């Protein structure tokens, strides 16, 4: 009898432990609650009224990959009136895989070259323009172009560029580099372009 009780207790303990472990590994789709700390910069200002209360727990960003960032952007129009130069960094255009905003190893040299350019031209800023091929839906592509530009921006920041010098814009599928309805066109349209901005 005592033995049975012990076994029951032991099993209960095991269950509790596993439940505890399960709780700690928070699914990434949960919205973080106010007061929760997260690794990602660009956090909510504390006290924003989302959620109904928080418990401490592990960061929701525990599954975040290298390219995930979140450095707040300049207000819109910060570089209005600056002189635009689309040619200077044309060769550094970054290309993406289908439906991805991850920066491929083959493209990292281009991002590094842009960072070097900005380090050598300290007065300049850059606008990263995110584009998509036409295969996604329009609404989806607008957001995908945005994420591509933001992923490149986070890489530039990681390479030491001040966040305020990097603007982003999405053009979705609205501004294809080449016309065409096959992969040879699509791969050239899934891209981030760099527009150098210099003070007027």
């Amino acid at each position, binding site marked *: 009898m005592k033995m049975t009780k012990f076994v029951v207790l032991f099993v209960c303990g095991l269950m509790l432990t596993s439940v505890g472990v399960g709780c700690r590994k928070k*699914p*990434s*789709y*949960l*919205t*973080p*609650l106010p007061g929760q700390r*997260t690794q*990602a*910069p*660009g956090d*909510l200002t504390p006290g*924003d*009224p*989302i*959620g*109904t209360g928080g418990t401490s727990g592990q960061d*929701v*960003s525990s*599954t*975040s*990959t290298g*390219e*995930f*960032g*979140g*450095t*707040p*952007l*300049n*207000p*819109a*129009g*910060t570089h*209005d009136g600056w002189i635009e130069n689309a040619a200077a960094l044309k060769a550094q255009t970054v290309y993406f895989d289908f439906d991805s*905003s991850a920066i491929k190893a083959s493209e990292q040299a281009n991002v590094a070259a842009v960072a070097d350019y900005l380090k050598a031209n300290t007065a300049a800023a850059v606008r990263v323009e995110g584009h998509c091929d036409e295969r*996604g*839906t*329009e*609404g*989806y592509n*607008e*957001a*995908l*172009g*945005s*994420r591509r*530009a*933001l992923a490149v*921006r*986070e890489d530039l920041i990681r390479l030491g560029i001040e966040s305020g010098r990097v*603007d*982003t*814009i*999405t*053009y*979705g599928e*609205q501004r294809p580099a080449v016309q065409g*309805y096959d992969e040879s066109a699509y791969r050239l349209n899934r891209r981030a372009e760099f527009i150098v901005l210099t003070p007027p």
Partner: protein
Amino acid sequence: MRTLGLALAFLTLASAGRATAQVQIDISKILQPGNTKPLWVSISGLSGEALQVLQFDLYVQGFNFTNQSGAQYIINGTVAGNLTAQATDKINGRTLISRSYTGGTLRRQVHTFADDFVAQLQRKGIAQTKIAFKNDTGANSEIFVSDFDGFSPQAVTKDATIVAAPAWVPGRLAIYYTSYKLKNPDIFYHDLSTGERRIFARYGGSNLSPAVSPDGSKVAMILSKDGWSDLYVGDAGGGNVRRLTKSQEDESSPCWSPDGKWICFADKSKGRRSLSKIPVGGGEIQRLTTGGAPSPTEPDWSPDGNWIAFTSSTRAGFDVWVVPAKGGAATILVGGEDPTWSPNSRTLAYVRRQGGGRVLSLLDVPTKQYKDIARISGSSGSNSQPSWAK
């Protein structure tokens, strides 16, 4: 809605001559999308524009056309300047409607008759509703508003820039949309009756996909101001903007539950696309099951609260599907994308790709009957991103 379903079911059964007191009516089966037979109509006395308008109006609401002997409803009309028309139910010989119309255009008179006719079948007509959409001419795009059948298009914007995703304010002649007019994708509010417009959201980065709450007091949207693309909600006037999601994955295409308590959106978590919903005040994200539909996106919640229409994408292209609002097995409806519900929760407007362009089409969900709407005349461009005024 249930009453409506029952009424419809009764009519359908009566027409088949199988109605008995013992028949158990299974509402869920009757409302099963795509499984409903059309109601047969015979039209006589009308020709040209009047006939075309009436046939379009009825076809996209689940009617189809045959001769007098095969029809359940007999419509007889004459046009002598104005429209006079009658509709009778052949089964019981009852005159449903007999009316003369004056004023407006002939199109409008026929639309009004179509609404009067379906009202006799306990249904709310859609023939005098409006849609907003994007007209893309290649270099630029503009927001347009037209009748639900694509006629009488009016340009809302003339900015010669990129626009995206118009969204109606329920019950008002006003829309929100994204425009690049100020060299950034910003969300504008535009009062269509006065022409007045103002900036609603102009944060750094992208301001996309506005969706207005059923009571018009809040707007959900996708912003990237904090360095990543996430779901936000703000007051209709532009204040009190709060971030609802915070993930490295993508969120897009928010829409509202008709009770205003939930925002449904396209989500991706752990590499898998899904539809999800989140309480408007923030909280735990709930994934919706969309059984059978790969890579769901672009949800739109029916005004009666029962269904969520969405786009499913495969390598072959896009299809419009529908799933019960609480999730479950989804039903494929038609090849196309970006569906928006009619105010009576029966018809969908959606986008069909045709050659290199896009056209808008209307789909009667119960019968799966669909027809393209008129494109803007003189435009070889694409029409897309429809929003049906509710």
